[in-house]
């Protein structure tokens, strides 16, 4: 226990130099925890809302359906397997039929996807109950982005044209019954939601769907002609986005940490140089060289402990404030990423993140503290006592 005790004494005895190094290093602590928690929060929030409104507990994709290949959409729909149809009837699954179409708002031609969904489903948390028919035109539900891009509003009637199963063009009017707000762009942009029954009848695709979304906790099953897609596939874009952003941000805190580590390295070299007489004295008093090296290394490493304490003083209030109020993105910034970003990003702190950060900084500090101390091994105590460097 003597080494930690002495190291702490020496560190505190170094006064302002110690606190300055600890302050610089604490910036890395706070930046890493804040940055990583922000991305962790972003990931959680985007994943949650995407699961709620689109991915559910996974999706069965029909036939050749590939959301990234529009040519597969037309021919993809398959008969909904009986078990899934029964689940859908019980509200435990949400079949969605996707059909390419065209609308003509205010004389313009806009390519869209018509998405048929059961208004009574309870898997997806979107206001699909507004699609319940009360006679008249086919009800249509759109998101705010779609409304904005197409210049549509609640109560508008828009003509939609599509091709049925046989390839024949057909058209009908759709009444926009409501406009919903969602941060998930893939349930909003370029699409109109209509009742599943209507779309199946309109396109001659009775009992067919393109995807069937199941609630969370539903294990994957095998149905002929259908492929189950789990979160790994459905949330892949979100994970990739967060990873890319996180990587970009890491440059910021790596730079901060490099500055702090350079300062510690420099301090260690200067410290060993200035304190060579002290090193000689320690050896003369009977301290083994290994312990002298341990002492100097620990002095540097303890800086990270002080830095954590300093960081906590100003970082905790900041991080708590961020958790409460979030980091508000500039207007329309959230949409520009093309993903389910909220207007404010809320960091998500975890014990694992804090512990990992402390371990990372501690390890890096220990390495840069140790490197200069290797010189002590070659130092002759008789020279060191005279203040010479052998």
């Amino acid at each position, binding site marked *: 226990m*003597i080494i930690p005790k002495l190291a702490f*004494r020496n560190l505190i005895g170094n006064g302002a130099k110690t606190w300055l190094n600890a302050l610089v290093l604490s910036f890395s602590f706070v930046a890493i925890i804040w940055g990583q928690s922000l991305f962790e929060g972003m990931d959680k929030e985007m994943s949650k809302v995407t699961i709620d409104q689109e991915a559910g507990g996974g999706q069965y994709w029909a036939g050749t359906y590939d959301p990234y290949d529009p040519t597969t959409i037309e021919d993809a729909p398959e008969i909904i397997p009986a078990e899934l149809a029964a689940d859908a009837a019980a509200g435990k699954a949400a079949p969605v039929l996707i059909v390419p179409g065209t609308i003509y708002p205010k004389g313009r031609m806009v390519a869209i996807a018509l998405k048929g969904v059961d208004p009574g489903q309870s898997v997806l948390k979107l206001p699909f109950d507004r699609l319940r028919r009360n006679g008249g035109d086919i009800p249509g539900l759109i998101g705010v982005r779609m409304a904005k891009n197409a210049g549509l509003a609640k109560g508008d009637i828009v003509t939609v044209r599509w091709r049925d199963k046989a390839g024949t063009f057909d058209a009908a009017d759709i009444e926009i019954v409501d406009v919903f707000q969602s941060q998930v762009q893939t349930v909003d942009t370029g699409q109109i939601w209509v009742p599943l029954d209507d779309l199946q009848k309109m396109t001659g695709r009775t009992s067919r769907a393109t995807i069937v979304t199941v609630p969370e906790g539903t294990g994957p099953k095998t149905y002929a002609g259908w492929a189950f897609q789990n979160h790994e596939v459905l949330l892949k874009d979100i994970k990739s986005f967060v990873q890319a952003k996180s990587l970009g941000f890491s440059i910021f805190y790596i730079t901060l940490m490099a500055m702090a580590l350079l300062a510690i390295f420099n301090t260690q070299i200067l410290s060993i140089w200035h304190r060579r*007489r*002290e090193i*000689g004295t320690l*050896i*003369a008093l*009977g301290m083994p060289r290994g312990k002298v090296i341990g002492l100097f290394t620990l002095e540097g490493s303890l800086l990270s402990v002080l830095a954590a304490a300093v960081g906590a003083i100003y970082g905790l209030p900041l991080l708590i404030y961020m958790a409460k109020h979030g980091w508000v993105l500039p207007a329309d910034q959230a949409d520009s990423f093309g993903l389910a970003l909220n207007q404010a990003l809320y960091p998500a702190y975890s014990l694992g993140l804090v512990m990992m950060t402390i371990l990372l900084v501690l390890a890096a500090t220990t390495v840069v503290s140790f490197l200069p101390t290797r010189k002590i091994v070659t130092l002759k105590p008789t020279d060191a*006592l005279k203040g010479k460097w052998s």
Partner: protein
Amino acid sequence: MNTNALIKTVNLTKIYPSGEQPITALRDVNLVFGAGEFAGLVGPSGSGKTTLLNIIGSLDMPTSGSVEVLGEKVEMLSHKKAARLRNRHIGFIFQTFNLLPVYTVFENVEFPLLLLGMAATDRRKAVREALAWVGLGDREHSRPAQLSGGQSQRVAIARAVVKKPGLVLADEPTANLDAENSHHILQTMETINRDLGTTFLFSTHDAKVIQHLRRKITLIDGRVADDERVPA
């Protein structure tokens, strides 16, 4: 053979490599010191006093010959064993005091006991006792920067004797002190030597120190030129 020998050097030679012309600091030094001696190595600068002291203190190694300190052959000791020998049995007093600057007087004196792993209560008692010997009981919270040269050297003496070692090696202990402080310090060391039976071995060319020695070994060009015992 002197079986009570605390230190025994046999044909001790130390040569420092220095370009084409190596420097011979010690040549065939044969000396024996017993327990409780108050002896000094005297001689001009460069005569090998400090080198001999360093080798006896296991801070340096002989080029040839042998040095036995408290039954340990210095030339055979590993770094770790040499550190243990110094830690347990040898106290050092340096010309420039060499106090640890960020520690208080108490902590400086306590340091060798920390290395020994002594319990806190025993440490406190031993440190206060050592500070009382050197008359600095009231300065235990001071830092080295707040002390005069004489006070600093007294702290160094307290640090050297706090663990009650068998041997204290003092390299020019009065070189940076005025006459009054030198006198006080030598008196302190004589008292400790008498009361605790600690062997003191000085390296000095200070006449004030030489007056107090009970054995005077004169080194010239690394050889023992004279070994004189002063009657009490």
